């Protein structure tokens, strides 16, 4: 999968899969940084700069080409996208939906916020393209599926990796 993901100016791709695809996204960031500046928005504490540095073989100084901003609530995600201006660098958005799984915010509100994010993803991908990763929540829900569908519909391309079937653990209670 690493080799296939490619960002294209004018659109953004959706990368959906289990949390393990984080490595793919970090590799993507490293490859983009080798070519030039890259903008990363992290919605799920995923940006492990050390793993990226390791992939920038011998050139850890390229880390200064990566601009990173972290978000911890869904309001912050929308605010960060709204505030960002169009720049000639690709956008990588990590774990986009994580903050939108927070059930302390009413679902209609989360859905409204996700929808408001979409035009900004498009806007920020115009000059150099973008990639947005999402993971399923710990406990699947119809709400999560609705949010996923909103994003999937808006994406120009979709990379979807199914999570492995859960292994039945015999020692588990209940």
């Amino acid at each position: 999968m690493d080799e296939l993901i490619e960002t294209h100016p004018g659109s953004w791709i959706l990368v959906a899969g289990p949390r393990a695809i984080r490595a793919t996204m970090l590799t993507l960031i490293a490859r983009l940084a080798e070519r030039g500046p890259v903008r990363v928005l992290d919605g799920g504490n995923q940006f492990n700069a050390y793993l990226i540095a390791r992939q920038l073989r011998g050139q850890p100084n390229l880390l200064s080409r990566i601009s990173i901003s972290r978000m911890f609530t869904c309001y912050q995600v929308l605010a960060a996208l709204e505030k960002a201006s169009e720049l000639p660098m690709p956008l990588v958005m990590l774990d986009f939906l994580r903050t939108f799984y927070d059930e302390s915010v009413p679902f209609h509100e989360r859905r409204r916020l996700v929808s408001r994010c979409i035009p900004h993803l498009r806007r920020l991908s115009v000059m150099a393209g973008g990639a947005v990763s999402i993971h399923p929540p710990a406990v699947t829900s119809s709400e999560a599926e609705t949010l996923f569908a909103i994003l999937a519909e808006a994406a120009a391309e979709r990379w979807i990796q199914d999570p492995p079937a859960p292994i039945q653990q015999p020692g588990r209670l209940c």
Partner: protein
Amino acid sequence: MGRTLPTASMLIQQEEQSFARFRRALRRSDQVALDDLFAAARQHLAAAQYAAHALPFEVLLLAMLLEEHKEVMRLRQQLDELPDASRNG
């Protein structure tokens, strides 16, 4: 708002794990020595954290080397304290 990056302690643990295959193939006596090196590096977690080096493994190696050099200095000092006769065997 949580920490995004692993702590120095987690980094050392990850580096140690990444050498699990290397360690397995070593002789038992060499495994013991290798474990000692990692344990020695753990003496400098705070400094490793503060260093904020993009490639933590480099800091880890330096920390190991530091402890090794301290050991050399200690042995040298012990040697200096020995009477001349015993040094000649």
